[in-house]
């Protein structure tokens, strides 16, 4: 599903975020990406949907070499990847429902089918009753669940989340994680970055530990 080989990423100015990263993620797998703040977790995740390009090495996603992808092909790559960010990146000028509808507008879904899918996604994260609310009225944990609904509404095979629980209390964090586990159980490949070691250990899943720009 995802395969990194000898990936390095240097930012302009000489800062080296990743030195040589190699790992691969099988379809249907759930893995935690751990490491201190600033270890390069976000950088690594950003390489997968081509938000950043590697300085060296290759990043293969769904059989495509992302590093060599043309600019025009990137949107189509991203439609197959569900992205969840630490700051949910929701739009506060529209309802929860319209936020979840956003990705469906690009792919040109028929309105009725799109609305059905958006409601199904909201139902899965337990927020169907709040579809008319503005995201600003929701708690941090609920906003993160809206972001997850938006990430999965196009039914991607791969779900990537960068510190989705960082700003949440323990109860909300557990609930958000359960949602990711539930998606994994129906076959979605999930890669979750977190610095919360305790959380990772209680799930007993595969762990990729990033330190000094390498995966141990």
């Amino acid at each position, binding site marked *: 599903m995802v395969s990194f080989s000898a990936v390095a990423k240097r930012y302009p100015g000489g800062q080296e975020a990743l030195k040589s990263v190699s790992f691969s993620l099988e379809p249907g797998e759930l893995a935690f990406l751990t490491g201190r703040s600033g270890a390069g977790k976000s950088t690594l995740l950003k390489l997968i949907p081509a938000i950043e390009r590697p300085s060296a090495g290759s990043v293969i996603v769904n059989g495509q070499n992302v590093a060599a992808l043309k600019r025009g092909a990137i949107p189509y790559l991203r439609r197959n990847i569900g992205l969840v960010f630490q700051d949910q990146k929701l739009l506060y000028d529209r309802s929860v429902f319209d936020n979840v509808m956003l990705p469906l507008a*690009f792919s040109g879904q028929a309105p009725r089918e799109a609305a059905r899918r958006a409601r199904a996604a909201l139902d899965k994260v337990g927020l169907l009753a709040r579809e008319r609310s503005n995201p600003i009225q929701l708690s941090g944990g609920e906003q993160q669940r809206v972001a997850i609904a938006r990430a999965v509404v196009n039914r991607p095979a791969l779900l990537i989340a960068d510190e989705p629980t960082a700003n949440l209390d323990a109860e909300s964090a557990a609930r958000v994680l359960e949602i990711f586990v539930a998606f994994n159980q129906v076959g979605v490949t999930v890669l979750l970055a977190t610095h919360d070691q305790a959380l990772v250990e209680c799930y007993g899943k595969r762990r990729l530990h990033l330190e000094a720009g390498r995966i141990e």
Partner: protein
Amino acid sequence: MSAWLRQHRQALGSALRRLGVLNAVVIGVALSLPAGGYALLDSLRGVAGRLALDTQLSVFLHPEAKRAEAEALGKLLRADGRILRVRFVPRDEALKDLAAVQGMPEVIEALGRNPLPDAFVVTSEPRSLEALAADLARLPPVAHVQADAAWARRLAALAAIGRLAVWLLSALLGIGLVAVTFNTIRLQILTQRDEIEVSKLIGATDAFIRRPFYYLGLLQGVVGGAVALAIVAAGLWGLNQEVAVLAQSYGARFSFTFLSPGDASAVVLFAGVLGWLGAQLSVARHLREIEPR
């Protein structure tokens, strides 16, 4: 309905929601100047054309010239290569024309006889008009050749200057329209920064993101063009109220006419194209700056 059509409809809807009335009015006011100027000039040109003075000579014969002499002269004129058209105006007919003018029958009555000579109205190339007038004046039965070209030429020159001014104004305000649209779209892109960034992150193509802005520029131009036409129509209507009173005092009938349907649609089309161009320039310049990090 196909996905492509649906996306265009969505973009158009989004552009309609963001269309600023004030911007359209600004564009409309700016465009109403050249459009109105053009309408005025066009009406004046209609008058000048009706008088048709610019290439015509009136050739008056001696009052005592015989009809045979007149016919001989007519043959001569028709043979002249510089002359395009010849129209003979017999003195009786000229008197009848004169009698049709308000107040004239009384005057003619008082004269007791026809004071008008036979005449020819000669149309020629504008270039050879002066020389032709001089030649014709030397012919025996000709009493007087009147070239009304001088003031007609002055009027034409003035009209030409007016037309040039209208074109210059159009060009300047056209650039203004592009600049106004450029700036509107820039501000719009800034206000929608979050939406654009998120859309790029979750798989929107560049075309999808640009489309509403193109529509916005186009619509703003088209609505601005329509506002300009409305302003011109209202202005001409007001002007015509006064002009009618003035013309009537001269016993004449004149009014400024609105732009022809072709010209009116050209104004709207021109404004739309320029708005689209402004949007295109702005989007090319500013959308690139928003890349998710």
